[in-house]
């Protein structure tokens, strides 16, 4: 019996990938997936002071296939992102894949938020993504192509109480993805998004022993939260050469949450 060739279509052998926000559960899982598929990876942080965590992530990535390069940075600083994109291109022999797993959950009543909250939440969840796309995109335009995946949330298309600004930022990332996809469509850069469902990780508000978490679980089609590694399939598909006609699209990994009323 012939053996299946599925892995050929999705292999990332010879590709270089930069994961920004690699200290987060989703960024870590993304890096592991890319390494498993054969890519070489640069792990860049969202926030400084994450050296220890990035080393832990690096061990997982290394075990998955390839030894990563670690870059501790502040994704709110353009100079950091710019240097990281250049470093990644140099270390990886080209920046073929950029994954922005930039996310800082922010929950609280709207009436309590002041203008500093607005600036901070938008900076953490939107401006960082925007600048990372710009800086990664600049390198990709120079080299003649690449693929960007922005990780956002199903909250990009659904509201939830006590997270108005967070929802707004996530929606903005989704439409930022579409607009950049169109702008760079004829320059060889594909830009897509993944909308994560309610995640099972440390920063999730939905895995607590409280009424909110219980309600969410009841409402979810599979009655369970999404494991960060479950985003891996969608990520690998989107960055693979087989998805060459897919751009400006988003894939929700939410068990069907977004499909229901």
């Amino acid at each position, binding site marked *: 019996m012939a053996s299946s060739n*599925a892995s050929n*279509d999705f292999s990332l052998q010879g590709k270089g990938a930069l994961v920004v926000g690699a200290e987060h559960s989703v960024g870590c899982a993304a890096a592991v997936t890319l390494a498993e598929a054969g890519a070489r990876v640069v792990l860049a942080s969202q926030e400084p002071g994450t050296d220890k965590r990035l080393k832990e992530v690096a061990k997982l990535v290394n075990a998955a296939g390839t030894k990563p390069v670690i870059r501790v940075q502040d994704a709110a600083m353009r100079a950091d992102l710019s240097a990281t994109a250049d470093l990644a291109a140099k270390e990886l022999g080209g920046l073929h894949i950029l994954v922005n797993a930039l996310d800082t959950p922010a929950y609280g009543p709207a009436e309590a938020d002041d203008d500093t909250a607005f600036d901070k939440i938008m900076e953490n969840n939107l401006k960082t993504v925007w600048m990372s796309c710009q800086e990664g995109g600049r390198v990709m335009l120079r080299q003649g192509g690449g693929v960007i995946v922005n990780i956002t949330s199903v909250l990009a298309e659904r509201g939830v109480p006590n997270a108005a600004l967070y929802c707004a930022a996530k929606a903005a990332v989704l439409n930022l993805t579409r607009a950049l996809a169109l702008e760079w469509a004829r320059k060889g850069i594909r830009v897509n998004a993944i909308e994560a*469902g309610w995640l099972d990780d440390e920063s999730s508000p939905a895995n607590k022993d409280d009424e909110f978490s219980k309600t969410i679980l009841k409402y979810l089609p599979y009655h369970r939260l999404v494991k960060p590694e479950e985003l891996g*399939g969608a990520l690998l598909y989107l960055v693979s050469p087989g998805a060459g006609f897919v751009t400006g699209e988003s894939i929700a990994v939410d068990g069907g949450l977004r499909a229901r009323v």
Partner: protein
Amino acid sequence: MILDSLKLDGKVAIITGAGRGLGRAMALKLADAGADIVAAARTQSQLDETAEAVRKTGRKCLIVPTDVTVSAQVNALAAATVKQFGKIDILVNNAGGGDDSRVVQLPEITDDEWRRGIDTNLSSQFYGCRAVIPQMVKQKRGKIINIASGYGLRGGKHNFMYACAKGGTIQLTRSMALTYAQFNIQTNCIVPGVFPHDEATKQFFKGGKFIPVGRMGEDRELGPLAVFLASDASNHINGELIAIDGGGLAGGIAPTGVSPESSKQMAVEK
């Protein structure tokens, strides 16, 4: 390992409309990923060609000539699959079709034409889902992939039956997804952009110049997406639509793929 989760070895996939175009391309790629294929379509000779290509990959191919607008035939397709392979892992509801370039005034559309358009593109997919669900529920696993269209999400001039049916496909997908999640059955939609199969379509879409990436799709490009949605790598993706359209839906047709300052010129050319 992520790459292992994308393999379909030992899986059995039914593909309707497998005699040509996107259906054949998906059948071949699913076989390439390891699945045995049940190829359904109306035309025997086209199915024979698909089967020959599938068998070259080393997989089995069962041919079941089927008119998907006749529910008894779709039920027989599911039954033949279970009889031959003992299970149904994957259903790709692909058969259907519209005529984008045909302009018919609304008052001239007959009841029969309306029903035929809905039957070909929507009833056929409902029949397919209904036919495989008992077996998939019994297995407590299954993957259903419905082929929709950008016209299921956006309207088009003189596009009635096709747009309505494809919109129905999307809602069928969502309701299937929510109803059968409890049985570990995932139902999703592929939303193909422009994949031309004749000169008229190529001309209607002006060679793809209004598509953001500047070109139309090629049938083989649908294969990896079908494999992904048929595989364990997509087990928590359910009720979702994935567009493969060169950016079409992200912006909308006309003017897409052009920057605002050049859109005026584009409009003149059109």
